[in-house]
């Protein structure tokens, strides 16, 4: 089920004009920032389909940048986000792509600073809802509606079990889990949506597992 809550339908509270192009876009930007873990210095935003065709009038540009500045869908600062980004020292470039993507409202964000980089692809599926569908080349499906844990790790036996054990020890229940890897034995990614919030101690315990290379809590 793509829509689970009545508030996915009646909501979000948002700054106009378009829930797909503005609210959904802001949420993609915010999720990217959260995944990056900090405010990026340079951002390249590639827009596809309807995003590429109509982003200027819809404020898709200001919404994504607002999200990158950590603004919620109803934050009135979204309207001034391009200026605010400049003031915050964030350099943003927009690229309009003619490439056809599966969903008409798709954006690919490349975030970068001296510490590292991250590539995130999100789709705005309507009514302000979005899904992250790609992260650093890994295919995934992340809605951002439930607490989520992203764990990059070496693709070795026992890695998944160890992470699951830490969660069980912290009484965290897994609602949805997905494991993907680029190729057998290489780098892999676990996406775990949980019923309970993942505490700092649980996060640290997972980060210290020998197979684990990175942990992000959303």
């Amino acid at each position: 089920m793509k829509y689970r809550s009545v508030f996915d339908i009646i909501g979000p509270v948002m700054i106009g004009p378009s829930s797909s192009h503005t609210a959904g876009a802001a949420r993609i930007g915010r999720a990217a920032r959260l995944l990056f873990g900090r405010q990026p210095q340079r951002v390249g935003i590639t827009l596809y389909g309807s995003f590429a065709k109509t982003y200027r009038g819809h404020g898709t540009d200001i919404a994504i940048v607002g999200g990158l500045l950590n603004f919620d869908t109803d934050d009135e600062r979204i309207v001034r986000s391009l200026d605010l980004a400049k003031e915050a020292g964030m350099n943003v470039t927009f690229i309009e792509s003619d490439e056809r993507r599966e969903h008409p409202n798709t954006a690919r964000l490349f975030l970068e600073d001296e510490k590292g980089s991250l590539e995130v692809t999100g789709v705005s599926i309507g009514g302000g809802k979005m899904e992250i569908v790609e992260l650093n080349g890994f295919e995934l499906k992340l809605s951002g509606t439930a607490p989520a844990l992203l764990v990059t790790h070496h693709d070795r036996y026992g890695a998944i079990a160890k992470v699951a054990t830490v969660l069980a020890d912290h009484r965290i229940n897994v609602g949805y889990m997905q494991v993907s890897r680029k190729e057998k034995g290489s780098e892999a990614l676990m996406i775990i949506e949980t019923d309970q919030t993942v505490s700092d101690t649980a996060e640290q315990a997972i980060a210290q597992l020998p197979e684990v290379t990175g942990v992000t809590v959303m």
Partner: protein
Amino acid sequence: MDFRTVAELVELAETEGLSISEVMIQKEMETFAKSRADVFSQMEKNLDVMEKAVHKGLKGIHSHSGLSGGDAAKIRRHMEEAPVLLSGKAVLDTVSRATAVSETNAAMGTVVATPTAGACGILPGCLFSAAERLNSDRETMVRALFVSGAIGYCIANNAFISGAAGGCQAEVGSATAMTAAAMVEMAGGTPSMSANAVAIALKNMLGLVCDPVAGLVEAPCVKRNAMGGAIAMVAADMAMAGVTSVIPPDEVIGAMYQIGQNMPNSLKETALGGLAATPTGRALERKIFGQPNNE
């Protein structure tokens, strides 16, 4: 408490002896382990935002592009001053409020997406207008939002609710159907009457293309919100009169999905076709952006 289709929703309501709003409230509580008070107060906040958007728009508000604004106030004045009204006071009251919210949205004001921002005028427009005539209390109004949400939930999970995915039938069409069902419950109708209102309303929106001029959610969107409001009210009255839909609501939703799938991309919010591609549409696009988005 689980449903996926309008038929399942109505059956659940009837066998449990509950209203549609109550089924939706209980489902939300169960799915997210939330208290009734939490779920209810969150929806109440949405109602407050809607009310502010109505007031803001009725005072007269203009968008940055200049494509929309001021019509809500114009309709309101006409409704109050004209010696004769062709459609009637109730209709114009609804239409002025629906226009007000859509104009607020186009001017980058704060709105509640119901189910989307492009279609955000219909539900509040009808709700605040009907509440005055029905003397509805705040609880009844919040409940109406849950009815709308329940129908939107069925449409969103079986078809689509965005213009980019399924044309304006998916957006203004869904909002109109959701609202029609809510109006029925507000007026004391049964769950199956609400379902018929959904079918009657959505049938009249089938095939509606999404062709925003210059790609903006303003023209024709604001006026489609106004007319969606009018259709929702009439569909609700028809259902209250006992009129039933020949095609059941879920099949109408299925038809909407199929039509949307068959619709060319140029008519799905790309601003490549329809009204966006008319000489005036293109001229406005050049005026607003200097050069067209799509050339």
